[in-house]
């Protein structure tokens, strides 16, 4: 056993607890046991700030830290960002409710647990125990810190040979090292040998990962599902199940697996991001939107903060902007704008990000029927695109779509012409064709409108025959609206009233009336329609006489 006072002397220690009494009592005890340089953090965010700033030898963190990250998440982030050496200790302090604790990730295991309430003596005994084990694995951890993984594996094997009492921690590290080095068969052997004697969930998970990597996804899935029956809180099994299902092209089932994991452990940002990504691909915005929202919130003060979360959240939110007059749509639009504002502020130097944010901003304005604002955001995007040195094809396609949406057909047409000469993926070609088609639809609408305007001009000047020619051209397009058709009927009836009823012209009016179909009394065009219909009937009778 180690000498605790010596082991703690000169070590830098971080204590994390949200309860003031708990952290001051722990600090007092740690000082009495020989700890010198001790920092105190009151929540997960402060703890991560300390960990980013200083190199700690020991972190003692409470598991339950209220609303922010829990102790396990601090550990995962500290190790993920490589701010905590393998030789450093991370100890999780749990309440008596540890029975409900959610298991962390396979590769991020704390060095030990201490259960509250504890006395000075109990803390001392636990620390001696944990530090002794860590010391026995020192060579392994030093090699890991130097990224000499094969050397670490060698040391691990030596520990397994010489120190049978360390079989569990040594097997755990060895399994992870072999997985990292993609030595799946050897890792599988380590896990399987251990499982012959000891039923440990992490070894089952490791075994399943190896089996999958060695090409047997069905057996891996069966093993993961069995492990979950025995240990329903082992959420990382769901993550692996989702990965395997995705590889089997079963995205809906993969989403369901992640949803189960999130129901148990909603604070894991990477899991929320993966759920958002898969749900978005599945077109399930009702699931994608909250997942990205959580990802933004959880990632805000973490190493997992990502531009994608903000953009995808705002994109997913568009689905809910059905009615600009409804409060629900207004609230959702506000949330999307807030996310985009935060993004623009936090990533002000990232031109790509600003461009994408402006595009989504434009879409949000459009969905909220703010056409002028939509156009303004589109123009911002246009300026940002121009500044990009080699913009992605997808950006140009997004810009084209935004030009069409904001009635800037000329700019859209130029962009389409430019894109037609470039090399595009099949997916991009499909998108370009759709945009081209949309733009033509727009042009057609504009053409019909201009013919109608021309007809109205002739009509007002009493040039009925010229008006009829223009209206006939306009109504020749099936996209022609009801008002254009009523104009055409009106011009023809006026001509027939002035001159005489004409059977061919009446037939023509009849075809248009059929195209118009029923107009309800509430429709503002009803009075005009009824009047024309009455005159038409009268002219029909006159023609028959």
């Amino acid at each position: 056993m180690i000498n605790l006072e010596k082991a703690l002397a000169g070590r830098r220690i971080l204590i994390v607890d949200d309860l003031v009494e708990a952290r001051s009592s722990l600090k007092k005890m740690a000082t009495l046991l020989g700890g010198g340089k001790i920092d105190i953090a009151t929540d997960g965010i402060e703890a991560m700030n300390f960990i980013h700033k200083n190199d700690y030898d020991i972190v003692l963190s409470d598991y339950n830290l209220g609303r922010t990250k829990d102790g396990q998440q601090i550990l995962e982030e500290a190790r993920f960002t490589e701010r905590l050496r393998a030789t450093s200790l991370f100890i999780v302090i749990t309440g008596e409710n540890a029975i409900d604790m959610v298991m962390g990730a396979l590769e991020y295991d704390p060095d030990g647990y201490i259960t509250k309430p504890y006395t000075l003596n109990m803390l001392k005994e636990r620390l001696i125990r944990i530090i002794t084990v860590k010391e026995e694995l020192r060579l392994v951890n030093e090699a890991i810190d130097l990224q000499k993984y094969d050397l670490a594996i060698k040391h691990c094997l030596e520990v397994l040979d010489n120190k049978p009492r360390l079989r569990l921690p040594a097997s755990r590290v060895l399994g992870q090292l072999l997985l990292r080095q993609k030595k799946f068969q050897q890792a599988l052997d380590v896990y399987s040998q251990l499982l012959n004697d000891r039923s440990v969930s992490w070894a089952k998970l490791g075994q399943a990962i190896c089996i999958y990597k060695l090409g047997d996804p069905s057996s891996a899935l069966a093993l993961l599902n069995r492990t979950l029956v025995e240990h329903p809180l082992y959420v990382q099994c769901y993550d692996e199940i989702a990965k395997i299902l995705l590889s089997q092209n079963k995205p809906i089932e993969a989403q369901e697996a992640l949803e189960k994991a999130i129901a148990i452990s909603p604070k894991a940002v990477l899991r929320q991001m993966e759920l958002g990504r898969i749900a978005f691909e599945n077109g399930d915005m009702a699931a994608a939107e909250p997942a990205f929202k959580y990802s933004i919130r959880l990632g805000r003060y973490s190493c997992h903060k990502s531009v994608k979360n903000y953009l995808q959240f705002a994109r997913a939110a568009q689905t809910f902007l059905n009615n600009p007059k409804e409060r629900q749509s207004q609230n959702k639009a506000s949330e999307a704008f807030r996310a985009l504002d935060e993004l623009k502020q936090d990533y002000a130097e990232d031109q790509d990000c600003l461009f994408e944010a402006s595009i989504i901003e434009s879409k949000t304005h459009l969905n909220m029927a703010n056409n002028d604002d939509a156009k303004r955001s589109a123009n911002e995007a246009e300026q940002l695109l121009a500044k990009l040195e080699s913009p992605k094809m997808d950006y140009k396609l997004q810009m084209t779509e935004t030009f069409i949406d904001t009635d800037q057909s000329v700019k859209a047409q130029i962009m389409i012409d430019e894109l037609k000469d470039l090399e595009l993926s099949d997916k991009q070609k499909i998108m370009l064709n759709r945009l081209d088609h949309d733009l033509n639809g727009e042009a057609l609408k504009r053409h019909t409108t201009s013919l109608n305007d021309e007809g109205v001009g002739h009509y007002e000047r009493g040039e009925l025959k010229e008006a009829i020619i223009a209206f006939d051209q306009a109504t020749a397009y099936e996209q022609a609206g009801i008002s254009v058709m009523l104009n055409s009927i009106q011009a023809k009836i006026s001509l027939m009233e002035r001159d005489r009823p004409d059977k061919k012209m009446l037939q023509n009016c009849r075809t248009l009336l059929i195209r118009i179909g029923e107009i309800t009394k509430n429709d503002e065009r009803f009075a005009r329609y009824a009047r024309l219909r009455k005159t038409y009937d009268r002219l029909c009778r006159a023609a028959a006489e």
Partner: protein
Amino acid sequence: MIKQSKFEFLVAAFVHDLKNQLQSLSGQQDLLINDLPDEYKQKLAPMLRQTNQIKEDTLRLVSLFRLEHNEHFAMDDAWPKDTASDAIESCRLQFPDLVIDNRINSDAQGFYNEQLIKLALVTLITNSAQAGAKQVELLCEELNNQSLNIIIHDDGPGFNQDILEGLADTTKAEGTGLGLSFVEMICQAHQSASQQGQLTINNSKAGAIATLYLP
């Protein structure tokens, strides 16, 4: 798996909630008592003891429920001396006059669910105290391949013959009779490939002996 009725489910949820609330209440009382002058501490101590007792009981109920439903309890490397220290700490508040001697070797190592074994030890120490023991000692024997015996030996009146013969669960008038069954269930939840944990009880010349075998 045992089929669960709606009532059972409701009870389980209620007890689970109760356990969390008591945990919080007990924590708050602890803090409050620390801030008080000694004379008030003495007066409030029984209240804290009772809260602690109810908390321990609900924790036992939750564990019992989970054991009955074969729910998962993670096993890991554990050191009986530390587990025993935790159990003794929990009991000290309840039975301040009971002398509890942790004579377990620091090196002894096992593979078990520490929370469950701690509960088992607390239950057995409580039984000893309630039976009238003045002193309890905890020992440990390491057997081959990390299996071990944890032994609780007291100086009380010993187990009644009916209990030793399995004819009764308790001799205490107010006892639930669940104590020993609970400890037995905890032992049995510990299994290796070929063996199952077990509880054995017997009497020595000077009191009762309970042995937890953990494979």
